[in-house]
């Protein structure tokens, strides 16, 4: 009896903590179904009045979403900018990094270690440092204020290759040796033997890389002066000030791609985080 009580308390405590962690998410979702007028009434803070955080809309409506999609011509463009800056670079990055990671993990060749150490060092440097060389080159190539500049920088950023190499190291060499004895070529080994075994790692790294790009703030802020080209990850907060009536729905819509990926791939995210081990 006493034990049961203890277990129950445990569940209650952990559930309360979870609720607190989820709170920002819950508030965003429930408020996005309120009337634009209700939001304005709750959050416009004139002369010493407090904001009213209400969790349940007096009337559930898609009014805000309608406004976001059909009344905010900027929003669609900004969302599209995020898509353009994220999806192509994640896909190309994974392909290029996978090939290189395979060579670094599974083929012995002169210069392998020094190449990896250079990549690793640059990977450990924060964005405050790496943006300087990025900016210098883009400036030289006349690619500042162009979206392609950011895409290129994201494609060659070193995190994906380090994590993929780590994952490929766990695949036993024997499987490759066996295939070689059977006379399989390098391409056959990559596509038929390594790729199927590395699916989990590729998914994990692709998800982490997506999260990074979808959330980026520093790069567009410095490398794109033109607000017409900037993604929602930078511009979203302008709605909070100028158009609070649609800001909740605007925020939720921007979350959706990330949420879908989270729901489908949370196992991979955990695997991806574990890849940081023994680095």
């Amino acid at each position: 009896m006493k034990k049961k009580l203890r277990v129950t308390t445990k569940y209650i405590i952990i559930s309360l903590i979870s609720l607190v962690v989820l709170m920002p998410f819950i508030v965003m979702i429930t408020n996005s179904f309120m009337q634009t007028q209700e939001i304005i009434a709750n959050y416009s803070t004139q002369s010493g009045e407090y904001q009213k955080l209400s969790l349940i809309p007096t009337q559930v409506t898609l009014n805000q979403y309608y406004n976001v999609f059909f009344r905010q011509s900027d929003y669609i463009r900004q969302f599209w900018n995020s898509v353009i800056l994220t999806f192509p670079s994640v896909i190309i990055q994974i392909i290029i990094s996978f090939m290189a990671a395979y060579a670094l993990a599974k083929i012995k060749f002169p210069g392998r270690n020094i190449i990896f150490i250079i990549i690793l060092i640059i990977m450990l440097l924060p964005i405050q440092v790496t943006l300087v060389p990025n900016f210098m080159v883009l400036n030289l190539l006349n690619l500042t204020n162009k979206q392609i500049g950011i895409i290129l920088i994201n494609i060659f950023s070193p995190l994906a290759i380090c994590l993929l190499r780590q994952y490929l190291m766990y695949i036993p060499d024997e499987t490759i040796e066996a295939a070689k004895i059977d006379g399989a070529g390098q391409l056959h080994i990559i596509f038929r033997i390594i790729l199927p075994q590395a699916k989990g790692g590729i998914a994990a790294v692709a998800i982490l890389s997506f999260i990074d790009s979808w959330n980026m703030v520093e790069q567009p802020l410095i490398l794109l002066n033109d607000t017409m080209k900037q993604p929602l990850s930078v511009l979203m907060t302008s709605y909070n000030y100028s158009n609070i009536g649609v800001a909740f729905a605007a925020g939720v819509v921007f979350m959706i791609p990330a949420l879908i990926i989270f729901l489908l791939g949370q196992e991979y995210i955990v695997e991806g985080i574990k890849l940081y081990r023994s680095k």
Partner: protein
Amino acid sequence: MKNKRRTHIKAYLLILPFMAGFTLFYFAPYVLSLGLSFTQGVGNRAFVGLNNYILLFQSEAFILASKNTLIFTFTAIPLMLIISLLLALYLNEKLRKIELYRSIFIMPLVLPTASIILFWQIMFEDNGITNFILNTIGLNEVQFLNSNYAMLVVVLIYIWKYMGYSIVLFMSGLNSINREYYENAEIDGATKIMSFRKITLPLLKPATFLVIILSFINSLRIFREVYLLSGSYPHESIYMLQHFMNNNFKKLNYARLTSASTLLSIIIIGIIVFLYMRQRKADVN
């Protein structure tokens, strides 16, 4: 022999696309920026030794940004370690539905900061929810985003956001500890606290090391939250290194940019190597 050479060529071909871009956009300009940090002038660059670094340390903005970044790092990381270790220990105690709870703690990692920042604004603005609560229970209101309390808000957001990383790493560290150690300790009459100190903590060292490094790297990303919360000109207590860099990008001040980035790389690599050495030493013992 010939075969070996062919393998090498294949390896180089595989690595070529990545290395070409990586060298062009990261490595070569990085090395160049190291060199530029010792020069001044446009076009006709003159070698000035450590002059840029001396000027950097005379810049009030740089000192302020470094100070704030240090304060943030040294507050946020210990808090992160304690909170995420406690949660990982809690989750590890054979609760059912562990995965569900773990997912909840990972979720903030995925949610775009840009979307969630609205919630933090509602909570911490002058007329926000927190002040409403403070007022209701009879305490004084606080200008959270425009006073030294801003740092507290930023630390809170950081822990909320990146806790998932540390919990996953701690949980996988805890899982790898052999249960028999605890059973034997219990037979020997050790209390729970004793086995935590003598078994869990020492065996959790590699995980802790990793959490510290990752939290450190993530802590340098906090600019995002600060920028979205209070723009390019935040309260001076949360003026971070990236704010300093942004200003100099706008002015195209290469002397500042390259010397600051070189200095920062030396410090960061130094810290990571130091932590790594300590970890290696602990492993050997």
